[in-house]
């Protein structure tokens, strides 16, 4: 399913938009003008990558500085060890759409436990 995220014009370069689905997904607009979508939750702990430091095609986690490659989801260094999922992005009529991957997400233990427990 394609989910509309936001208008491309509303997402300046260097910024991220968090799509509040479960688990959340973030759309990044790089300084080079490319658009990528990855899982928003860091695989180490409960941090939002949309709050991170975007540089080139990498985003640095705001808490402990592991970096994720927006193109592949790969992580560069500890403390995170697992990649995030990447999602297909489409821009149509100025709107960014995301097709959420059907792979299982690599959620950090604290978030996985919370989701397993169901809504509070």
């Amino acid at each position: 399913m394609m989910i509309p995220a936001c208008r491309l014009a509303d997402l300046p370069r260097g910024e991220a938009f968090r799509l509040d689905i479960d688990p959340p997904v973030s759309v990044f607009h790089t300084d080079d003008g490319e658009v990528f979508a990855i899982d928003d939750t860091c695989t180490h702990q409960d941090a939002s990558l949309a709050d991170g430091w975007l540089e080139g095609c990498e985003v640095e986690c705001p808490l402990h500085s592991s970096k994720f490659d927006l193109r592949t989801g790969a992580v560069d260094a500890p403390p995170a060890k697992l990649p995030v999922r990447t999602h297909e992005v489409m821009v149509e009529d100025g709107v960014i759409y995301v097709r959420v991957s059907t792979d299982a997400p690599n959620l950090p233990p604290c978030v996985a436990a919370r989701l397993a427990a169901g809504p509070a």
Partner: protein
Amino acid sequence: MRTVAVVGASLAGLSAARSLRKQGYDGRLVVIGDETHRPYDRPPLSKEFLAGALGEADLALETDGEDLRAEWLLGTRATGLDRAERAVRLADGREVRADGVVIATGAAARTLPGSAGLAGVHVLRTLDDARALRDELALGGRLVVIGGGFIGAEVASTAYALGVDVTVVEVAPTPLAGPLGETMGGVVSALHADHGVRLLCGVGVKGLSGETRVDAVLLEDGRSIPADIVVVGVGARPCVEWLEGSGVELDNGVKCGADGRTSLAGVVAVGDCANWYDPRLGAHRRVEHWTGARERPDAAVAALLAGGELEAGMPRPPYFWSDQYGVKIQFAGHAGVSDSVTVEVGAVDDRNVLAVYRRAGVPVAVLGMNQPRLFMRWRKQLSAP
């Protein structure tokens, strides 16, 4: 360069070994560590691991199947560096000849004189320390933490969550005043009182009482605080004794340039044992934080492989985080050089704060409590060259 020896097999040592391979070094790589464990992560030792939420397997720093093509000499202490022979001497009499040496021996917890051999008294630096403390905390009782720094505060916070009765004793009038300054040190350490953890400031510890097991902490003002468990969190000292007489200049750890190069060619130092020159500060500073131990080896390895032919880049300002009582605390920069600190966003009373430290109006440091997004923006701004 045909052989590189990395001494110290923790975060900085592993990061150096990884950088070497990533930067194309193809020769022999020997990693020497005195602990028997594979490289593991220390921050959870005072947090999730101590609380029982993470197990030992979760602490591993290496990823599954990672192979750095290194020889691992674990459970082996380095006792000397022989500059003439270009060799690292080991406690078991062996030696490792190497053209390049990375010093990554970190720091060790300071202890309290006279506390050796008294049951119930702990420090917290290693996995073995954390296991012992975790097992005792599980029995409950009264915990006295000596030292209101980050490790002490995290232990207090974790123990409080486990239902333990906690008192923190701090000799300075305000905890954390060193790293955060008086004002913000006070704000962060107010977290203790929010949770009913007693904080006694401005009073030194005279000693411990107990026959075989500790039963109280004796204060200099004559008070005696009953204790079943004591954690001594009074800082760490760099592990550099093994370098004495080697020709590597020592001064509060290993004295290094802005790229980790030491006074000996072919020898670099990284992590908690290294006193790096900080061009932003115009002075040397030894930083005991995770992110520096993880990142600076990249620059040190580049300098080592280039044999001194490389301009040192501008490192990012020191950064650390701490988790206490469910609050995410983040700090970057140097509070010590500031002349003002202002809360830009949030409210001190809510323990939700973004504070900026300035010197002559120019931002030099930033503190966040539960403000990861804004904090990241400020940190980025501080890092601009």
